[in-house]
């Protein structure tokens, strides 16, 4: 493979008219910057960031609830490192930890189950966030806790599904998107076919792409070819990992533990059937059902435009708070603090 040759092909790609493509996935947002691929984009190609950062689309009241449960029920909050610095309405997990709240960063959700085993006298509440990629792993943990009769392990359901969110964006018509770079690892679970509606129902092209530099270059080249040739189809660049039907075993486990339900997305609002709730059989693991904390009313910063950003209406630099009142040290919105948030990526890697 001669990646440098492919890089030249991309940088010299001739576009007749300006083209806007959306990368749905937050890891793509960051990787486009980190690998330098965005830096070699041809003239006229614009990348619009999508709603694919699970931390960014989590609404404030989720973290407010987690913090309230932690304090009021003396629980250990177990979370992926990604959530630590995300602002809630009034604080963040990191700040609450400094005040004495028990917060443990875990790499795998199974580490949270182990935490429950190791601390039998403590209640562990795992913040179950993430899209289709992460949710099956979290489902396995709930199954494991049930099988081993672990009574002090709970999850706070916050998982979301990407397909309904992309549909909402397409339906709203707010943004003119010529094509999509689709999330490779979500697709590993749900399969390439789950995205075919983009072409058949909306007449837009899309490419399922991996995350290495050559995946990003090839994915973009493929998408530009589809756009240039007015060919609305969904193509799989990441065939080494993504099958047409995804990972059926993972989907089976996912839907044995979770069921679809309405979910509140930051900036987008409630999207029907876009969230994952625990099935009734697993209600005893549901922190929302087992605890009834007093949660203060959620509060959004009035100037924060993360919502519009996550809908692809603006890019980070369009927000008047960007880089001024809102920066990684004092983040106002989650898009600035999440490692894969578009604002964080622009702030860190942007040229300004």
């Amino acid at each position, binding site marked *: 493979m001669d990646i440098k040759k492919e890089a030249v092909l991309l940088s010299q790609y001739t576009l007749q008219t300006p083209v806007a493509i959306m990368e749905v996935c937050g890891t793509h947002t960051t990787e486009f910057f980190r690998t*330098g691929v965005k830096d070699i984009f041809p003239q006229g190609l614009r990348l619009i960031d999508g709603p694919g950062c699970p931390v960014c689309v989590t609404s404030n009241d989720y973290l407010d609830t987690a913090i309230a449960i932690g304090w009021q029920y003396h629980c250990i909050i177990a979370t992926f490192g990604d959530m630590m610095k995300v602002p809630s309405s009034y604080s963040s997990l990191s700040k609450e930890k400094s005040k004495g709240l028990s917060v443990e960063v875990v790499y795998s959700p199974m580490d949270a189950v182990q935490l429950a085993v190791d601390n039998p006298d403590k209640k562990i509440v795992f913040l179950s966030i993430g899209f289709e990629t992460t949710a099956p792993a979290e489902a396995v943990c709930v199954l494991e806790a049930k099988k081993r009769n672990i009574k002090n392990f709970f999850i706070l359901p916050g998982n979301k599904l990407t397909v309904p969110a992309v549909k909402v964006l397409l339906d709203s018509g707010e943004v003119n998107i010529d094509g999509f770079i689709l999330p490779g690892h979500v697709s590993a679970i749900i399969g390439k076919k789950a995205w075919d509606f983009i072409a058949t129902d909306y007449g837009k092209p899309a490419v399922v792409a991996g995350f290495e530099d050559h995946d990003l270059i090839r994915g973009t080249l493929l998408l530009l070819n589809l756009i240039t040739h007015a060919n609305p189809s969904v193509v799989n660049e990441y065939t080494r990992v993504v099958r047409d039907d995804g990972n059926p075993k993972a989907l089976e486990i996912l839907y044995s533990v979770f069921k679809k339900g309405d979910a509140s997305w930051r900036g987008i609002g409630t999207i029907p059937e876009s969230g994952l709730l625990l099935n009734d059989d697993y209600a005893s693991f549901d922190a929302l059902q087992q605890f009834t904390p007093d949660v203060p009313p959620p509060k959004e910063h009035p100037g924060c435009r993360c919502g519009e950003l996550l809908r692809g209406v603006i890019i980070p630099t369009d927000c008047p708070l960007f880089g001024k009142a809102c920066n*990684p040290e004092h983040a106002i919105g989650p898009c600035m603090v999440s490692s894969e948030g578009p604002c964080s990526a622009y702030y860190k890697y942007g040229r300004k």
Partner: protein
Amino acid sequence: MDIIVPGHGSGGKMMNDLINNTIKSILGSDTIQIDDSAILTVPVHSIAFTTDSYTITPIEFSGGTIGSLAVNGTVNDLAVMGAVPRFISCALILEEGLPIETLKRILISMKEAALKAGVAIVTGDTKIVPKGKGDCIYINTAGIGTVENSVQRRPIVSGDSIIINGTIGDHGTAIMALRNNLSFSKGLSSDCAALNHLIQDIIKHFPDAIKFMRDATRGGVASILNEITKGASFGAKLFEEALPIRDEVKGVSEILGIDPLYSANEGKVVIVADSTYANDIVAIMKKHPEGADAAVIGTITHEFPGKAYMQTTIGGNRILPVLIEEQLPRIC
């Protein structure tokens, strides 16, 4: 098992026994002075004086302990100023419950590091804190060095070379791996080492070529480059393909979602030097065990003044931003 108890901080016999039978007998009853201060004789030179505290968890790791870290860190802080490290102090803050055996291992590693670096531990202090008020052991070391061949530090200009004495991110990554239950087929050790001999050798040979020298500890190589370029009329450019990074470091970094350019090193010095001498400096580094993987990793440019950045493998540029907080493992 013998452990640290409150009596060890009492000022009575238990404390004296700990100091005499454990601490001084290991660190050097010959060099540590018994009075309230050490009286030192130094040749007529300017002196460099530094202090640093060490609070690392875990306290023992592959490639070192909090003790060797404390000695090498202070030695390196002196060495990068062009000083020859001479004397260091050792202040211990011990948490009740610390096994004496563990303390002994840490002290032995301190002594070994001091011997290797050629510094004498001349004074010290020991305090005991109640269980839960500390994290096993904290160490403060202050150091004095004599400035014999000062570095000229002429202004950095476009075209200067950026040089490092070896692989990037070993220490921080080894610690992160340990904290996250990752293991290695061949092993990954901290690069914890004293650099004074290597640095003195370079200064001796190229007193005029070196424009900047700093040990790349917390915040890693990228943070050093941000320090150099802050407010400057030049930028610092790294070449991704030239970076010496161990496979294991790449592997851990990918798994945990961290960036080796921001991971701590404990035996690495970043030098900005006149490019004419860059290859000769690398050659001298390679003569030392701490410089086996030395390389020219970048250059000072006119592009992007005030920024550190990197030309990636595919030829694009990527800014290396100022690190805001400690890196955490992530899944996104």
